[in-house]
């Protein structure tokens, strides 16, 4: 009996001895508690979850040396070695906060990022397809954002007092030399690249990364989709043509091919146009995309876009005296883009790419032919990685080579190679403060210029949903081909940006205000007359204030945004005789975009109202240049997407519902009439409205798939 008792007693004490109680608390570096951390002994079941105040306590039967692992969301995990000796151990653990993509401050000055993957975006990729008035054109949709000016006769992106060519398009980091389809005179052109190809769009209205060069005003960076996960066939029947796309997906890759035929002749026959077409535009386009995962982390993307378009029309003399002239344009375009991305090790990734653009315009005016051709390649290699958990580095080198020729009665040609290297570091002081410092150096073989462009931005989180950010940078771009071909020694044009931004975001609301100042230097300048003496004596400035408000919460089933931009800009460039506001800029631009979902009829209705105050135009009858002022621009556009079946979409859109006769400027006769006045003719829209109807059918195993994201 006694023996039994002793044994029992011994057993109890032994059990008690073999248990070690581990307790303590988990804190941030600044001493604030971290709730719900997982505290455990590695390779055992033993452990617990810390409570709301970071305190924990648990027992273990492990003996000797153990490793305690502490893990909490948003923090770096920590391991502590100790010896479990069968008594209480108390530990204080402090965890270091991870700089986390989702909670860290981002540089928002100048940047509009659209992505469907992330919630932290102001603008989503699907917005491009569903914005009324944009007719699924990337530039059209971005034109409803602040920082852009409506230039109705161009269709391009004019950013903050910059010309259309000052916005550069990049696909997967690679430059696109001619991003817009050809169009008739004073008819808006469309982007060559369809929004559905991209998973993300980053539209910068200034102060962008040192990775991007050869753009004075803006960088439009498009990220193509990764592997397609579904095999599907998409058919589009449009009022202006038809297209068919097939996507084949396999485990480690996918391939897609699209053929699109556009013929607006039947439409033009039905709707009267201001353009005297002989043969309205017809184009055939082929797009091919290939994606393949290579090894565990590599991704190879190939993309090709081939297009031929053709049209002819009659130019009428403003004075109505000469015969009408026949103008014909044939454009051939090829774009090939190959990019490869791979993870080198835990901290570094490497990206390489190559792109080729070939474009050729064969023009005939009154039986006189001239042609313009440009072939360009872009090669690039970039390394991105983390030096420490708070310092991210990006460094790379690239070469952009262009061969340009313009052949009429004389031959004007040039070869230009730009070699560039860039380095940029993101330094996180905490999740609340980041500094981005970058430097880009370029050497231009044509004019012998070596340039150094610093870029610097800061962003500071002022609250859980608000932040302030600032960006500065200098930017360099070669003079436009149309001048460079006459004088290849012209230096590059320069711009400097200063941007201050405040942004407040919640789940479904965004408010942004941004102000900027921009200085232009070394702009192209020449004289009227037989000796233009092209030089870089031009200069200018642009400054402005912009507001953006988006709300998809307050009104049921409704998503809307409002943009307002104020712009004050003057330049003394080209043949200007003083500092003047250029013809493409308007002081006030306003857009209101609304999308309303009506469940009962499976429809989304979209309305966009755009306003731009009058633009200057040059009236040779007046003493001062650019002294004319057009009436204001108003446009009310509408679209309707109807989904009768999961795999079927019917799409209807109409621009300029009210049929307002918008005037973009005036053209003048070269000669004075009998009363000594230059006759004029207004530059108008080709037709008051553009009506578009499309039916989109998707065939796939999963019947719920449709083309909504591709519209």
């Amino acid at each position, binding site marked *: 009996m006694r023996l039994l008792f002793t044994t029992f007693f011994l057993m109890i004490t032994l059990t008690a001895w073999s248990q070690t109680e581990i307790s303590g608390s988990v804190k941030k570096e600044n001493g604030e508690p971290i*709730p*719900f951390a*997982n505290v*455990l002994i*590695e*390779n*055992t*079941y*033993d*452990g*617990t*979850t810390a409570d*709301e105040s970071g305190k924990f306590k648990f027992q273990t039967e492990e003996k000797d040396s153990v490793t305690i*692992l502490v*893990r909490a*969301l948003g923090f770096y995990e920590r391991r502590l070695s100790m010896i479990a000796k069968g008594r209480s151990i108390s530990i204080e653990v402090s965890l270091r906060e991870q700089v986390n993509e*989702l909670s860290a401050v981002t540089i928002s000055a100048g940047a509009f990022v659209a992505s*469907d993957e992330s*919630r*932290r975006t102001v603008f*989503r*990729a*699907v*917005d491009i397809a*569903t914005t009324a008035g944009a007719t699924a054109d990337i530039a059209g949709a971005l034109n409803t954002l602040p920082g852009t000016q409506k230039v109705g006769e161009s269709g391009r992106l004019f950013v903050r007092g910059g010309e259309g060519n000052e916005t550069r398009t990049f696909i997967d980091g690679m430059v696109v030399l001619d991003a817009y389809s050809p169009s008739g005179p004073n008819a808006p052109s469309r982007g060559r690249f369809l929004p559905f190809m991209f998973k993300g769009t980053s539209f910068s209205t200034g102060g962008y990364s040192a990775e991007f060069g050869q753009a004075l005003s803006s960088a439009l960076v498009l990220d193509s989709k990764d592997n397609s*996960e*579904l095999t599907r066939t998409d058919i589009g029947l449009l009022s202006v043509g038809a297209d068919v796309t097939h996507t084949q997906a396999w485990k480690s890759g996918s391939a897609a091919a699209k053929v699109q035929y556009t013929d607006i002749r039947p439409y033009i026959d039905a709707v009267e146009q201001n353009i005297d077409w002989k043969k309205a535009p017809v184009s055939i386009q082929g797009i091919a995309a290939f994606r393949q995962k290579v090894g565990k982390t590599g991704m190879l993307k190939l993309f090709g876009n081939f297009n031929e378009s053709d049209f002819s029309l009659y130019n009428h003399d403003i004075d109505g005296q000469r015969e009408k002239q026949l103008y014909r344009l044939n454009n051939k375009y090829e774009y090939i883009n190959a990019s490869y991305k791979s993870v080198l090790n835990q901290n570094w990734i490497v990206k390489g790419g190559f792109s080729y653009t070939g474009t050729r315009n064969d023009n005939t005016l009154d039986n006189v032919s001239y042609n313009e051709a440009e072939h360009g390649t872009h090669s690039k290699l970039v390394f991105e990685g983390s030096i420490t958990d708070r310092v991210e580095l990006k460094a790379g080198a690239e070469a952009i080579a262009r061969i340009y020729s313009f052949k009429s009665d004389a031959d004007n040609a040039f070869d230009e190679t730009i070699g560039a290297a860039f380095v940029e570091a993101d330094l996180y002081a905490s999740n609340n403060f980041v500094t981005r410092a970058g430097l880009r150096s370029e050497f231009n073989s044509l004019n012998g210029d070596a340039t150094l462009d610093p870029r610097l931005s800061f962003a500071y989180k002022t609250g859980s949903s608000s932040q302030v950010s600032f960006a500065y940078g200098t930017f360099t771009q070669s003079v436009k081909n149309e001048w460079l071909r006459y004088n290849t020694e012209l230096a590059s044009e320069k711009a400097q940006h200063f941007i201050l931004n405040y942004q407040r975001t919640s*789940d*479904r609301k965004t408010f942004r205000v941004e102000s900027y100042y921009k200085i232009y230097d070394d702009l192209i300048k020449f004289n009227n007359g037989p000796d233009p003496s092209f030089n870089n004596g031009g200069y200018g400035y642009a400054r402005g204030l912009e507001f953006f408000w988006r709300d998809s919460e307050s009104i049921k089933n409704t*998503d809307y945004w409002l943009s307002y931009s104020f712009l004050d800009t003057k330049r003394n460039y080209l043949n200007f005789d003083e500092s003047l506001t250029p013809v493409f800029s308007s002081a006030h631009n306003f857009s209101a975009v609304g*999308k309303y*979902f009506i*469940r*009962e*009829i*499976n429809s*989304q209705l979209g309305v966009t109202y755009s306003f731009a105050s009058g633009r200057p135009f040059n009236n040779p009858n007046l003493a001062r240049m650019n002294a004319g002022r057009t009436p204001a621009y108003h446009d009310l556009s509408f679209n309707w997407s109807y*989904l*009768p*079946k*999961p795999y079927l979409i019917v799409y209807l859109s109409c621009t300029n519902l009210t049929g307002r006769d918008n005037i973009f400027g005036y053209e003048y006769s070269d000669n004075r009439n009998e009363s000594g006045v230059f006759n004029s003719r207004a530059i108008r829209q080709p037709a008051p409205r553009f009506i578009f109807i499309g039916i989109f059918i998707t065939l*796939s*195993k*999963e*019947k*719920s*798939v*449709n083309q*909504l*994201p591709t519209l």
Partner: protein
Amino acid sequence: MKTLQCTFIALFFCSVNLLANEVNDEKYLSTMQKNIDVLYDAKTLADYQTVINAFERIAGVETKKWEPLYYAAFGYIMMSDMETSLVKKDEYLDLAIIANDKAKALAPAESELLAIEGFIHMMRVAIDPASRGPKFAGLSMQSLQKAVELNNENPRALALLAQMQYGTAQFFGSSTEEACKTGSLAIVKFETYKSENPLAPVWGKKMAEGLTKNCQ
């Protein structure tokens, strides 16, 4: 003789080893069972995080077992559902997919894991139907159909598929007949399906019943 001795020794060690494995398995099963019960009873975000932490501790030891990761993923889906901030909803779904992907690497042909994957994609749609629907509805359908292909007796795969079909039919105003058929089939399978795995999930019947209630 010597060989025999060796064999005996080998056999002895083998049985000791087997015994040890069995003991470990027993500990695994009982610990898992305890935590699965806690998971089904969880009511608050803190409850869920606590039990998910337990599953993650088990997963750290049992590196060949898919069940702890499965339940962690399920827990994160529940957290995402309870959370009101859209950004956080997404964060929890990110954690769910990470856990489920790890589990899928261990048991690629497990129907329950494909069902959970379809569930996660379905939750993405709910966060922002307009921009997420087109992509994630298709992905969800794909995963759920694969889950049914792998095991057409799995009531959860059927219930989730029914849910997805119902939502799609409602969205497009088309007939819910197919969804209701899948839903009733799911209810039947909830009664008849018995997994050989003692740790197999049992949730989802209420969801299927709720769905079929709308069918009458």
